[in-house]
């Protein structure tokens, strides 16, 4: 029941009633429709989220005014089984400019039967972001840090309620 503080990964999974190939395709081609919209680093609303389906591809949000925010780079694209992409977003939900401190996300599509697929997602190496946290402590006390976090927590939670 406890989430240990030293655990540097987030893992989650879901089983869907769809063949593996279709699951992979829907995930990568319809990323726009599955990424939660409230997470937005643009100044304007998101018109579209794009997942470029190739190694070296970008994952980005495009705002209604045409501005773009690239927040991931595709490291592995292996249909229909697996994708890996970076997470170039720092703990305060801003773009990480130092790419060495990015974490990464792996999504595995595992066929349980011809019509069922288990999707395992692991977001790992979260401690890599930690290198930047020391220097951000001052900022954390201001409007960009914890208070912003809390507003987000609150907004999303209320939305759920």
């Amino acid at each position: 029941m406890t989430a240990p503080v030293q655990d540097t990964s987030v893992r989650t999974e879901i089983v869907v009633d769809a063949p593996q190939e279709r699951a992979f395709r829907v995930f990568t081609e319809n990323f726009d429709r599955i990424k939660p919209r409230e997470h937005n680093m643009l100044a304007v609303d998101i018109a579209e989220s794009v997942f470029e389906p190739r190694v070296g591809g970008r994952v980005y949000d495009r705002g209604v005014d045409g501005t773009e925010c690239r927040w991931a780079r595709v490291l592995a694209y292996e249909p229909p089984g697996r994708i890996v992409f970076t997470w170039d977003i720092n703990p305060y939900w801003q773009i990480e400019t130092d790419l060495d401190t990015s974490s990464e996300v792996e999504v595995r599509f595992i066929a349980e039967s011809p019509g069922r697929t288990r999707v395992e997602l692991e977001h790992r190496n979260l401690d890599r972001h930690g290198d930047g946290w020391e220097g951000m402590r001052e900022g954390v006390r201001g409007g960009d840090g914890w208070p912003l976090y809390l507003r987000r927590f609150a907004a999303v939670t209320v939305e759920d309620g």
Partner: protein
Amino acid sequence: MDGWAALADPTRRLVFELVVARPRAVGELAAQLPVTRPAVSQHLKLLKTAGLVLDHAEGTRRIYRVNRDGLAALRAELDRFWNQTLANFKQLVEQPQEDA
């Protein structure tokens, strides 16, 4: 309980926000909130279990402060983000074929 679930309760979130603002003792928190001291203690215990706050003794008082390494909070938020993403995905992928 993870950090996200810990903050889903409005009173607990309030407790957490006060602790984020500056380190506080249990009694001080109870004085500022419309809940009893034992209730505040219970909320703090859960927040501590979730890795969101740390505590230390000062004389007879126990002082709570936010866990600024941020990892627990980050995990909580990402946990929620990915769970929601997969839930959206499930809904979409299980729709009739002609839709996707």
